[in-house]
């Protein structure tokens, strides 16, 4: 470790550190204190210790929302990673009208949520919706989709996969960093496209895959919009996602104390999961400098 590196290191990280200390830590601490009180917005809070946290254990909706969210995360993250990686590979080829293709594949990410919802309401319509029409033509059984308790979360997973554009763009950027000479090396050795993918692309992309995995997990655990605009948590609480539940407690019922406790439990869960992912990453993520540092 060289002296100037340490000096410059701290200096260059300073904006980020200051931003964290000034804009993030304070509100976080405040919300942690809220979680130890019975504060209802507008009223006077009193200190209740860990009561909010112990009350969670008996709150059926806490468990319900936790399981719905976990289900969603387990479905949406791998599916989105797979689809976006595949599309990124596709859009990294030299084809005519590349700019147009890339833009088209990114479009679902850009269409505003409310316009998207109206579309998906039609897609999921049990009678004349797109999905059931296709299934009927293929002679397959149809579904109630987002209107049935069993299929509601899977339906939202399908819907969210459409927004793969952001993940795809990151993969696309990552693919530009894979050194050409490695591909050439494989080709010289007689390796085909499959081998190139398996032995060069995939290992070189692990830092990007890792990033998308972590961000995907952290993000989907906090999924909110779809439950809010599409299902309002229904039917029968099937899509009562955790953060949607927090919003309801915090702003419909103004129970900021309890909502904060809910939030801090989720914080702990996400932190543990992220920590485990980072630990596990040492086994499969390849960095240029891994050995050196």
């Amino acid at each position, binding site marked *: 470790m060289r002296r100037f590196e340490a000096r410059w290191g701290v200096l260059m990280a300073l904006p980020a550190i200051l931003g964290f200390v*000034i804009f993030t830590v304070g509100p976080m601490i405040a919300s942690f204190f809220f979680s130890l*009180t019975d*504060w209802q917005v507008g009223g006077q809070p009193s200190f209740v210790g860990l009561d909010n946290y112990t009350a969670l254990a008996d709150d059926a909706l806490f468990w319900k929302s936790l399981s719905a969210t976990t289900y969603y995360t387990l479905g949406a993250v791998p599916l989105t990673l797979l689809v976006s990686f595949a599309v990124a590979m596709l859009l990294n080829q030299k084809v005519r009208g590349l700019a147009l293709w890339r833009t088209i594949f990114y479009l679902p990410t850009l269409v505003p949520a409310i316009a998207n919802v109206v579309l998906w309401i039609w897609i999921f*319509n049990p009678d004349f919706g797109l999905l059931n029409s296709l299934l009927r033509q293929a002679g397959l059984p149809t579904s109630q989709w987002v209107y049935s*308790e069993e299929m509601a979360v899977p339906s939202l997973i399908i819907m969210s996969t459409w927004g793969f554009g952001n993940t795809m763009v990151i993969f696309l950027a990552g693919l530009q960093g894979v050194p050409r000479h490695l591909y050439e090396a494989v080709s010289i050795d007689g390796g085909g496209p499959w081998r190139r993918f398996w032995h060069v692309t995939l290992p070189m992309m692990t830092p990007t895959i890792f990033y998308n995995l972590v961000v995907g997990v952290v993000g989907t655990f906090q999924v909110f919009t779809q439950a809010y605009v*599409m299902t309002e948590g229904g*039917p*029968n609480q099937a899509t009562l996602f955790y953060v949607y539940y927090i919003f309801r407690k*915090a702003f*419909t019922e103004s129970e900021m104390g309890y909502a904060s406790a809910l939030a801090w439990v989720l914080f702990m869960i996400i932190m543990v999961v992220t920590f485990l992912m980072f630990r596990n990453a040492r086994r499969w993520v390849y960095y240029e400098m891994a050995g050196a540092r």
Partner: protein
Amino acid sequence: MKRRDLFRIGGLAALGAAAAACGGGGGGGGSKGSTQLQFMYWGSTFEKAAVEKMLRQYEQKNAGVDVKPLFTPDEYDVKLNTLVASGRVPDVGYVPMSMSYRLAEQGTLVNLFPYVKKYPQLAGCLPDAYLWYGQDKLHGLATANEVMLLWYAKDALAEAGVAAPPADAASAWTWDQLVENAYKLTVDQNGKHPDESGFDPKQIRQFGISSSITYGAAWYGFLRSNGADFADEAGKRCLLDTPEAIKVFQNLQDLIYKHRVMPGPGQLAATGDDVPGTNVLLKTKRVAMVVDGHWSLLDMNQSKVNYGIGVLPKYGEPFTTTQVAGASAVFAGSKHVEEAVELFAFHNDPRYVDLFQQGLWMPQEKRYYEDQASVDAWTRNAAHPPEFRTAVVDYTRGHGVPDLRNRLKNMSAVSSDVLTPALQEIESGKRPAADVLKEATPKITAMLQGWHHTQEI
């Protein structure tokens, strides 16, 4: 521990010494000299134009008073909670149903009772318009009146040879008459009715009726009409497991799954109550009759639907849900309470707000339902059909029961945690209404905290 201390802890960590110089909020601020008020509201661009016009008129009539609108198109509760927590509330504004009583009890809203007598337009309202939070404690009025009605597509009824639903409460259809007519109005792609052989319930072209099972305002009138209620007189015990209540919900469920005259969840491609609106459903004849609020009138006229208005079917005495709207209130901490109350009395006065004549709002003042000249003032125009007088004005006046959300304590938590999920189960048709309601009732009872206070003005 005080709220401010809590913030200070967070604030100190965040700001260091800067937090010590705490500002504190209060009122809409305002420079010396001219009085400045802040009016917080939501609404479409259509409503926004009407509200802005109202505020301009107020400023003209009250020289020296400046009103700044705080237009909040969405996430109203998030913003209002934040403003309350930071002591930055407006002077006058809309307050969502789920929040108004709570804020009043906490002292965030001004008790309007002492001011009411000064303003005839406030003193003479429909009894159910007043929102009381204790003896002689009044925190506001429902912003405008709204009532649930039976809308129908005239063309669809004419094609099926069905007589229009009655437009006066006395001759309202019975439930059986509703079902009977709904059969005639339900047609599949091949023109067959549900009681004919070969009827295809998967390919229904036109449904007879649509009436929400999950939206409280849509069924509360039926509940009361059948002699049932949501809770007992003390408001502490839920009564949804009584035979009368079960019958109402079983009848609704039967419309979907037994009679097949009403769309089930998702069949209209609708989530919530507004995608698509009743105007579209009737205009495209996807549905022949729809139970929906008076506010649909504006949409009906704008999309030129050939519609009619009837009263809801009855069990015993005819009832419908009224006061289906959130509160308007004056916020405590306003530096100009007198002016704020003045603005409050002004902001939903039909003389200054176009929304009444345009068919989105109904007045709260009694005289607009009783005195002929006053009734004419808002209903005698192209936006209000001829049957409006009996089907809406008289019906509201004589047969309205106020929306539960403005009457029963803790109702928003009851709805989101227990009631709505239970009703969604009934709507899904998986279990009969009796099973679902018997299971949900004790859970609701455990959450009930009594009715809100009511009194004569």
